[in-house]
């Protein structure tokens, strides 16, 4: 069953990048929540979430992102999200999250350039 979510955390120019591969839904969101909370706990307030290889995200996944964005907001943190797929972008637009401390990018180079 292709129900998994793979997560890796790396750093580029001291900026944490969370690479996500797979689907973020009610089954997999706890994994994502655990990883992003650890990154925030390590005092990172500008975080890049790479969703280039995410096939699907629903409101539970967006809930994790929104909750994390709220945690970093007091430190002027921004959630930088890389996603090129139109159907994923549409979800962010419909959710209204882009009115908060979120920025979307088409690729990693754009995101790193904006953050650093």
């Amino acid at each position, binding site marked *: *069953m*292709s*129900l998994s979510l793979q997560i890796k955390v790396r750093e580029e120019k001291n900026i944490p990048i969370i690479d996500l591969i797979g*689907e973020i*839904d*009610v*089954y997999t*969101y706890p994994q994502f929540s655990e990883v992003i909370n650890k990154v925030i706990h390590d005092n990172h307030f500008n975080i890049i979430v790479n969703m280039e290889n995410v096939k*699907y995200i*629903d*409101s*539970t996944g*967006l*809930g994790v992102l*929104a*909750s994390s964005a709220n945690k970093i907001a007091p430190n002027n943190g921004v959630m930088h999200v890389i996603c090129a797929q*139109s*159907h994923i972008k*549409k*979800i962010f637009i*419909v*959710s209204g999250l882009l009115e908060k401390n979120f920025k979307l990018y088409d690729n990693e180079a754009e995101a790193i350039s904006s953050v650093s």
Partner: protein
Amino acid sequence: MPNDNIVVSLKVPSLAKYGGIVRDAVYGVALRAGLSVEDSEDLRLAIGEAFTNAIQYSYEEERADKHVDIICNTANGQLEVIIKDYGRGFTEEDKPESNKVGIGLGITFMQSLMDDVRIESALGKGTSIYMIKKISPKL
């Protein structure tokens, strides 16, 4: 051939791990029914949200011994998908607020992405979510 009537029924355990299978199955039906890729992706998300609601609200916890029915039916130029659980149901007064873990977006997504959404629920009998997506004629 696109737009021929299609009827597909799925019965899956009331477990979160089956969400991906349900979404992929309905997405496949949508494409076969003649929906565009974009509309099929919209349907994938709406179905996922409906299934999540069934998992989160029908019982106190996930139940392998209970099931959720998913019925897809194309007729009259539209695809109707029904997500039906047999759990506790609710009344208008104690209507749940979308996803427990999400940010209250589950119902919003369904209503934004589908042409019509209707929810029927009866206390102690379960909940059915009816969603319709029109099949736009291809040029």
